[in-house]
C-alpha cells in the first residue's frame, strides 16, 4: 500500500490554489475571489461527504446503501429536468429512466455475484451508475426538446397522414437515444488510450496491481454502457408519452 497524504500534505497542496489566484489577479481576470470561494467550497463539501461516507460504511448496511443510491437518483432526476425544461413531465421521465437504469444494472451486477453488497462498493458504484444515467437522461431530454421545437412541422405532417404518435415521432426518438449514447460509446472506444478512467486510477494510486485494477474498470465500463442505454431509452419513452395527448397531438412545448 502506498502512503495516504497527511493533512499537512493537503495544506501544502493549498499553495497550488494560491498559484491559480496569483495568475488570476496578475492577469486581472476578475475571478480571484471566485477561485478562493470554489476551493473552500470543495474542501467543505468533500469533508462532509467523507464524514457521511465513513458513517455510512460503518453503519448503513445494504438497506442504507440502497437508500443512499435512491436519494442520489432523485437529485440526479432534478438535475436532468433542467435540460428538458419546456417538456411536460420531464422530471418524471428522467426519474423513471435513471431509476430503471440504476436498478437493472446494479441488480445484474449484484445478482451475478460481480460486485459485493457492502456499502463501500454499492455506494460508489451506484453513484457512477446514477451519474451516467443522469447524463444520458439529460442528453435525451434536451434532444427531444430541440426536436419538438424544430421538427414540429414534420411531426405534424406525419400525424396528419393518420400515423400514430410513436410512428410520427420515431425519427426524433431514434435521434434522441443515439445522441445520448454517443459520448459513452466514444469514451469506451478510446478508454486507456486518451484517459485513465477514475476507478482504475484510484485503485492504482491505492497500490493495486494495474492488471487487477483494470478488471474493475472493465466491469464499470460495461455497466455504464448498459446504464446509459437503458436510461436514454426509458427516459425517451416516458417523455414521448407525455408529449402527445389522447388525440395524437404534439402538445405545446415552451422554448
Amino acid at each position, binding site marked *: 500500500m502506498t502512503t495516504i497524504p497527511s493533512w499537512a500534505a493537503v495544506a501544502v497542496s493549498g499553495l497550488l490554489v494560491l498559484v491559480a489566484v496569483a495568475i488570476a489577479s496578475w492577469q486581472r481576470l476578475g475571478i480571484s475571489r471566485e477561485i478562493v470561494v470554489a476551493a473552500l467550497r470543495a474542501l467543505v463539501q468533500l469533508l462532509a461527504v467523507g464524514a457521511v461516507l465513513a458513517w455510512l460504511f460503518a453503519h448503513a448496511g445494504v438497506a442504507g446503501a440502497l437508500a443512499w443510491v435512491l436519494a442520489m437518483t432523485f437529485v440526479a432526476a432534478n438535475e436532468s429536468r433542467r435540460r428538458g425544461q419546456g417538456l411536460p413531465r420531464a422530471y418524471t421521465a428522467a426519474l423513471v429512466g435513471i431509476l430503471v437504469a440504476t436498478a437493472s444494472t446494479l441488480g445484474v451486477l449484484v445478482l451475478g455475484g460481480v460486485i459485493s453488497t457492502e456499502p463501500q462498493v454499492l455506494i460508489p458504484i451506484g453513484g457512477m451508475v446514477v451519474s451516467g444515467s443522469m447524463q444520458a437522461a439529460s442528453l435525451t431530454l434536451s434532444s427531444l426538446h430541440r426536436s419538438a421545437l424544430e421538427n414540429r*412541422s*414534420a411531426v*405534424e*405532417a*406525419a*400525424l*396528419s*397522414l*393518420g*400515423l*400514430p404518435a410513436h410512428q410520427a415521432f420515431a*425519427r426524433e426518438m431514434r435521434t434522441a437515444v443515439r445522441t445520448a449514447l454517443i459520448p459513452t460509446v466514444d469514451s469506451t472506444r478510446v478508454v486507456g488510450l486518451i484517459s485513465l478512467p477514475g476507478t482504475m486510477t484510484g485503485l492504482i494510486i491505492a497500490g493495486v496491481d494495474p492488471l487487477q485494477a483494470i478488471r474493475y474498470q472493465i466491469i464499470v465500463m460495461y455497466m455504464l454502457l448498459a446504464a446509459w442505454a437503458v436510461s436514454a431509452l426509458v427516459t425517451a419513452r416516458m417523455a414521448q408519452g407525455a408529449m402527445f395527448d389522447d*388525440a*395524437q*397531438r404534439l402538445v405545446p412545448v415552451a422554448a
Partner: protein
Amino acid sequence: MRVDRSELFTLEHVSLVIDGRRILDDVDEHLHDGVATAIAGPSGSGKSTLLRLLNRLAEPTGGRVLFRGTDVRDLDVRQLRRRAVLVPQRPTALTDDVPSEVRVGAPHLTDTEVRSLLVRVALDPADFLDRVPSSLSGGELQRLCLARALAVGPEALLLDEPTSALDPRSADAVDAVIRSLVGSGLAVVLVSHDVLRAGRVADDVRVLHDGRVTARGPAAGLDLEHELMSPPADGHVHDVTDPRRHGTSHLPHDHEPVPSTDLDPTPEQP
C-alpha cells in the same frame, strides 16, 4: 340541426382562446364538399388555426366542429386525419427517397400506384422516382407532399398556405394541380394570405379578420381585395352566398387601388 349531405365541415360557434388571447371568435361556417374553399386573411387572423381544428391538430375552447355531420371528437382521430389530410405550410420531406415519401402514410402501395400518384401531381415518374427529396425545388417538394397526402385516399385535402413559399411559376404549377384534384371530385380547404391567388384557385372564399369571418361567398362574387383591406364594421359579415338576397355583390371601391395582394407586412386593423 339539419345537416346537408353535401356539407363537408361544419363549424358551430367555434371559438378558441389561448392564454386570454382570442384566436377565433364565434366562427359559424359551412364548408362544402366537392369544391375548393379558400380561407383568406392577413397573418395572425387565425386562418391556420381554423384549418388545424378540422383534423384535430387543435381543439376549440368553445363550439364544435363536425365532419360530414359527426362531431370530430366522436370520430377516431386517425381515421379523421386519413379522410381529411392536412398538408402543413412548410413542405417537409419525411424520408430520403421519393417512393418512400409517397408511402409514408400508405406503406403497401404498389410501384404502379406510386407512379400514378406522381402523375396526378404532375411529377413525371421517369424523372422523379430516383430523385432525393432534399434535391427537389420548393414547388416539386410541395407537389410530392400532395402525392403523399393523396396516397392515403382522403376525401378532402386541407392545405395550409400551399404556395406561400414558392415563386409565382411554381405556385401556378401547384395551383393547377389543386384545380385538377378538385376537378376529379376531391374537396379542398386551403388557407392563404394571398387573396387574389386564393380567389383564382378556390370556388368559395371566407375572409377572416382577427378570428372572425368578415366575408363569405363564391370567389367570383366577392371583391376580394376590398374585403381584405376594408373588413366590414364590428360584427357584420359581408355575405354573398345567396345572390337573391344581395343582388350584385360588387361594392364600389372607397380606397385607392391596392398595389400588392400580399398583405402580411401591413395588415389593416378594423
